[in-house]
């Protein structure tokens, strides 16, 4: 057995043995290699033994194939029906996109990101968001009409809703104050005792109307359906596959 011993040139030559045998050395390295081999008996023996080993490897007999590994046609059809090809290739990215959108919506909803600075829920969630707006006693008692809106409402309500164009009505006797229904999105509340109070302002009717909650539920349902489809498809593909 030969060990990599000897001088520095010997170590270099022994690192190049394989490439020399395969005739893939550069002309410079080849020249150095051949000069060294002529004068170094150890490296020369090393080269010959390695060359014989490679020649033996070239003679390793090839084993016959015991059977065909061809893929069967029915298997091919089954694979094509459930795996990557056209049918369900879109499933995974579509599910991912919708799931991400749902997460963003839920995060925005819980953090009130869809509520604007005026306290209006632009996301349109009907029942969940109510903001109490402080009002003065005078604004609550002063009744106004708004062009285009049926009935009367208090000045406080009109301001809370955001109406800027309204007509102030003359004061009326105490018994007749604001008994008519007002088709505006506010709920009045006397939280401040006599005089000053609050207008409880509900978001959706005052804000921009797109149904956040319904959108969330819809997206959630779509994600569940897509995930179910994916699981089904994967089970089909994982079935035992055979060859001829």
């Amino acid at each position, binding site marked *: *057995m*030969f060990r990599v011993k000897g001088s520095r040139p010997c170590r270099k030559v022994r*690192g190049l*043995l*394989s*490439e020399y045998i*395969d005739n*893939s050395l550069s002309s410079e390295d080849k020249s150095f290699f051949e000069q060294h081999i002529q004068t170094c008996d150890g490296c020369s023996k090393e080269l*010959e*033994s*390695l060359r*014989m*080993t*490679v020649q*033996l*490897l*070239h*003679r*390793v*007999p*090839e*084993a*016959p*194939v*015991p*059977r*065909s*590994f*061809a*893929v*069967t*046609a029915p298997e*091919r059809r089954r*694979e*094509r029906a459930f*795996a*990557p*090809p056209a049918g369900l290739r879109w499933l995974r990215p579509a599910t991912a996109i919708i799931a991400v959108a749902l997460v963003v919506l839920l995060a925005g909803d819980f953090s009130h990101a869809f509520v604007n600075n005026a306290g209006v829920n632009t996301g349109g969630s009907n029942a969940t968001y109510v903001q109490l707006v402080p009002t003065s006693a005078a604004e609550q008692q002063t009744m106004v009409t708004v062009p285009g809106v049926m009935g009367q409402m208090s000045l406080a309500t009109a301001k809370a809703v955001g109406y800027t164009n309204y007509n102030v009505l003359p004061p009326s006797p105490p018994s007749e104050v604001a008994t008519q229904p007002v088709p505006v999105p506010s709920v009045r509340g006397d939280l401040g005792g006599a005089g000053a109070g609050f207008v409880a302002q509900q978001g959706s009717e005052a804000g921009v109307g797109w149904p956040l909650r319904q959108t969330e539920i819809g997206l959630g349902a779509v994600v569940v359906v897509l995930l179910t489809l994916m699981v089904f498809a994967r089970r089909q593909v994982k079935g035992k*596959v055979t*060859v001829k």
Partner: protein
Amino acid sequence: MDELELISRSKDGDVDAFNLLVEQYQRLVYNLALRMLGNAEAAEDASQDTFLSAYKAIGKFRGGSFKAWVLRIAANSCHDKLRVSRRYRIVSLDTLLLETDDLPQANNTESPEDYALRRELGRFLNEGLSHLPEDQRLVVILSDVQGLSYEEVAQVTASSLGTVKSRLNRGRTRLRDFLLQREELLPSKFRLNK
């Protein structure tokens, strides 16, 4: 029909075209698996896995050497099997003898003696290969048994040319040392120190 045409048709779902590719490469794949795993049954499994994986992934083949692509899948399949079960690494002489028993005679002119010698050599080299580390074994088989170029070996092993050369040199040297240690068992015709 040339190989590119067969690949193109396979991508379009032509199973017969794909099986022509299988027919063309199954011998190469099976022999790589047999040398890597040292066990006929495991080699069959690995070959089957290779062609099924190739068939599933044919749409992702983006050109280049199809042979290198298939052999890379085969090498990965062998690696998985070796990782799962180390028992394939050490192969008994009896097993190897059994595997080489049915070697076909190279041609009609080969004498029974030469045939026996060749079988003995195959058995001996198989055992030597089974003693190499997996990465060196793969490179030696691809280069010296299957005759791939350095560039093709680099593609199959997903490594650089420098790494291929280094592994090949170390693998050959190690195999040579194995043969020298057991030289008295090697047929005299094939002994390294004559």
